[in-house]
């Protein structure tokens, strides 16, 4: 330290000194928020300019040397200083007298260090600064906010202009780098809005992301949706200021033990209020980031891709693709416009890597559209476009109560899509669509949990549980109940009292509103009520005590509920945090489930084999089929709204299709394939063989009772279906060929990685037939493939029970050998294996 330092007033303890002024500003509390950050920056500006000028005054002419300037960069460049922020400083020089520059640097940096402030410093020529920025993205970002403090203003202005021009020129190359950097950081730090101890700066949706958005805007390539962005940033900065003052350290992590004090410093009610505010802000920023980066990607792609020659096959299918997507104009003028649209669901198309609404979509008349669009996006693993979500939020009609079956099915599909569900849910949530669909969601939104085991907020934990549950759907007979229970299991956390108890009531109510029947609603309510039962009992009670096992069996009631509760328990624990699940816990829970299952084994549920007696219409069709020797078919549209079920329970999805065919090989694959060719999705199917009274020879007729829905648009004519079915059965219509052709011309997007199919022989389910259970991801032609595999295995399908729950197919086939007896164990296992292979192909 030299004697000259005394003159600059750094060490002056009096009111004039920087240190004292700084202390006053930070402790007196007269100002806070943006004014205080600006005042602190201004105070620091004056001090540093004073230091710079004092050195200049010692030179011969007493004027600052030309060719040297002091520049603030980064956060300080933006004129915002938090109490413990670094000072980011650049001493810019033109490469003249290096000795003098070094001496000047010493005279500037030492006083800063002596005050104990963190300093991030560099000494560079403009050319060096640009080169470093070119090599290091972080330097580049800092320089974008360069601000002149003292010295040669022209030198600073020149650097600013050059740096901004470089950034714009290189945006196409460097923005993807920045995106990658942000993504890496997000993977490392997690997502601010869901973390219970978030890092305000580094986590996704934090201050760094807000800075990255500024950088994108500075590139002139794209801009962020601005609503609420500035305010969100301000809130995070305010919280960080309070955190710095509370801890006295330059930390950005809002640790649990600090949250109460920080909340008090910000005049907030409590730590929960603080976190909620922080989460809301982070949500705005991370959502703006998502939208902005997608826009950047689109702009960069559109610049990179030159008009290319289309392959012939693509061209041929283009007309159809556009026509189905409702883009008639595009279809008719030969598909020149750049944006390619391919249909995903009724009223929903994919365009340029995003899910948007079809031109024909009418959200104001189609209340299921938000859920359908969301489910289609999640299944395709694509984001929902911002404009689509906004339009849905603004114009979609509320769903009636109870929801129509399609809405419930789409919700189940959305929840069962695995990882992509999170982003789609988030997009709907950001525009308030979720709260409108499920008003009870409001109480758990952004709700922190004071619990060392949990890492997520309640809402994210619920979605995370659904994601985990979607991996376990093959283990249960009712994947739809599992997924909805996952979504609702902690819904009671928004209310005082035991959340399992309050949650039970809410879940029952929600289940009824979203269209589950009373029995299913009771199961859902029970799952929510007992979602902690298995893990608590398994780890704390004596499993050898028959009373323990009996109590659980009584609470659970049935095998199928036990199976659901087991899967829910595992999904819940996996979604809680790394400490909540281990093989240790898993084995204890499995042991309990095994014992409870043994107790419940006595109550075998009614087999689905006990089918109702055929109705008059069934018999009429069967007789006609037998008389004509060909297929007979009846398509019954949904009854009018006025004729709704008197029980008040909603009509199931789709229309009823009855088919009677004289028993012959290949009926199941032919019918299933035909429906797939006509783009009809199978919701449920029952197949059984009917012995006609009064017919002496083997006049069995197969009766197929289907519930089908059109994938797009309207249903085909019954007469056409009947004619095609005749041709399919006599072999003149090549269904496999038609399906393969269509798949080739119009490949399906498979975004979701579904859990692998599971086929097993149900033990001791029937005395008369072997029961083969199939659980798989629903797909066009799935039943056709299954039917063909059964046909190839030379077994007779006595009856089949097929249902589609969301995107999951749950089927049971009752099969016998050619002589009508159940298959021997070995053969049954081999048939199951063949089916599984057919599904994996």
């Amino acid at each position, binding site marked *: 330290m030299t004697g000259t330092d005394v003159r600059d007033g750094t060490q002056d303890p009096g009111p004039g000194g920087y240190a004292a002024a700084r202390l006053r500003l930070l402790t007196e509390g007269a100002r806070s928020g943006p004014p205080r950050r600006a005042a602190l920056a201004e105070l620091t500006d004056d001090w540093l300019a004073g230091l710079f000028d004092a050195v200049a005054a010692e030179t011969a002419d007493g004027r600052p040397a030309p060719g040297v300037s002091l520049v603030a960069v980064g956060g300080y460049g933006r004129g915002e200083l938090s109490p413990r922020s670094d000072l980011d400083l650049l001493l810019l020089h033109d490469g003249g007298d290096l000795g003098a520059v070094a001496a000047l640097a010493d005279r500037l940096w030492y006083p800063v260090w002596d005050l104990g402030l963190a300093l991030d410093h560099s000494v560079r020529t403009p050319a060096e600064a640009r080169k470093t920025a070119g090599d290091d993205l972080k330097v580049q970002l800092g320089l974008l906010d360069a601000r002149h403090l003292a010295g040669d203003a022209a030198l600073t202005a020149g650097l600013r202009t050059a740096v901004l021009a470089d950034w714009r020129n290189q945006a196409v190359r460097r923005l993807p780098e920045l995106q990658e950097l942000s993504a890496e950081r997000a993977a490392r730090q997690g997502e601010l809005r869901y973390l219970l101890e978030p890092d305000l700066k580094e986590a996704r949706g934090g201050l760094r992301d807000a800075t990255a958005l500024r950088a994108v805007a500075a590139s002139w390539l794209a801009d962020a949706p601005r609503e609420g962005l500035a305010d969100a940033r301000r809130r995070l900065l305010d919280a960080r200021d309070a955190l710095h003052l509370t801890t006295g350290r330059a930390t950005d992590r809002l640790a649990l033990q600090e949250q109460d004090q920080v909340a008090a410093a910000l005049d907030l009610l409590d730590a929960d209020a603080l976190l909620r505010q922080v989460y809301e802000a982070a949500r705005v920023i991370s959502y703006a980031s998502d939208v902005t980066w997608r826009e950047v990607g689109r702009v960069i792609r559109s610049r990179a891709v030159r008009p290319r020659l289309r392959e012939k096959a693509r061209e041929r299918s283009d007309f159809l693709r556009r026509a189905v997507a409702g883009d008639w104009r595009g279809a008719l003028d030969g598909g020149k416009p750049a944006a390619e649209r391919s249909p995903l669901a009724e009223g929903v198309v994919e365009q340029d890597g995003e899910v948007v609404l079809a031109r024909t979509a009418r959200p104001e008349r189609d209340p299921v559209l938000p859920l359908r669009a969301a489910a289609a996006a999640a299944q395709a693993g694509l984001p929902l476009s911002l404009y689509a979500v906004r339009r849905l939020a603004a114009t979609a009609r509320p769903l009636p109560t109870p929801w129509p079956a399609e809405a419930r099915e789409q919700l189940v599909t959305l929840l069962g899509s695995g990882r992509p569900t999170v982003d789609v849910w988030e997009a709907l949530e950001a525009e308030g669509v979720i709260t409108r669909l499920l008003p009870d969601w409001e109480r758990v939104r952004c709700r922190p949990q004071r619990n060392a085991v949990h890492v997520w907020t309640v809402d994210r934990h619920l979605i995370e549980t659904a994601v985990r549950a979607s991996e376990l759907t093959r283990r249960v007979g009712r994947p739809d109940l599992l997924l909805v229970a996952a979504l609702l299991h902690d819904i009671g956390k928004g209310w005082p009292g035991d959340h399992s108890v309050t949650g039970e009531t809410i879940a029952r109510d929600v289940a009824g509103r979203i269209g589950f029947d009373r029995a299913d609603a009771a199961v859902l309510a029970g799952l929510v009520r007992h979602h902690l039962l298995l893990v608590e009992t398994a*780890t*704390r*009670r*004596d*499993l*050898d005590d028959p009373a323990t096992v009996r109590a659980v069996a009584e609470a659970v009631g049935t095998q199928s509920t036990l199976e659901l509760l087991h899967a829910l328990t595992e999904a819940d624990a996996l979604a809680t945090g790394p400490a909540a699940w*281990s*093989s*240790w*816990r898993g*084995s*204890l829970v*499995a*042991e309990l489930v*095994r014992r409870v*299952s043994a107790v419940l084994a006595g109550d075998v549920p009614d087999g689905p084999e006990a089918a109702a007696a055929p109705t008059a219409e069934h018999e009429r069709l069967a007789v006609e089929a037998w008389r004509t020797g060909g297929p007979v078919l009846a398509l019954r549209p949904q009854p009018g709204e006025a004729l709704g079920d008197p029980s008040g329970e909603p009509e199931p999805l789709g229309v009823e299709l009855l088919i009677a065919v004289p028993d012959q090989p290949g009926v199941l694959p032919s019918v299933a394939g035909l429906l797939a060719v006509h783009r009809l999705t199978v919701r449920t199917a029952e197949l059984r063989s009917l012995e006609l009274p009064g017919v002496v020879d083997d006049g069995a007729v197969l009766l197929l009772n289907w519930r089908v829905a059109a994938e797009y648009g309207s249903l085909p004519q019954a007469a056409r279906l009947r004619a095609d079915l005749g041709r399919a059965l006599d072999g003149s219509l090549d269904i496999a060929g038609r399906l393969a052709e269509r798949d080739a011309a119009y490949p399906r997007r498979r975004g979701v990685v579904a859990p692998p199919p599971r086929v097993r022989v149900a*033990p001791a389910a029937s005395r008369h037939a072997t029961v083969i259970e199939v659980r798989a991801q629903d797909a066009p032609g799935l039943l056709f493939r299954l039917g063909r595999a059964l046909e190839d295995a030379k077994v007779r399908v006595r009856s089949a029970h097929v249902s589609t729950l969301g995107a999951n197919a749950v089927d049971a086939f009752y099969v016998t050998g050619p002589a009508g007896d159940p298959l021997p164990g070995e053969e049954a296992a081999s048939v199951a294996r063949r089916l599984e292979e057919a599904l994996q192909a």
Partner: protein
Amino acid sequence: MKLITAVVKPHRLDEIKEALQAFGVHGLTVTEASGYGRQRGHTEVYRGAEYTVDLVPKIRIEVLAEDDDAEQLIEVVVKAARTGKIGDGKVWSLPVDTAVRVRTGERGPDAL
């Protein structure tokens, strides 16, 4: 000083904790563990599939005690852990050279 280690059935944890607290023990460490003793593995049938359980879930409790208290403490743990059935577990003790409380640097019995 002695280190007392107990490997016992998971559901006895609450009782053992309460008993130790009543005895005046201020701190203990609990770990989830798996293992087997004299009963070895056994075969179970679950969902139609046979499998061998060779490692049974247990918890491992560790307590530091002064030499004079060790015997009594072992008795307390054994009493609280006992169900009388196979697989109740084991309790043992080892001599400990030294112990340091990290925050204050206190050593020996003062650190307990």
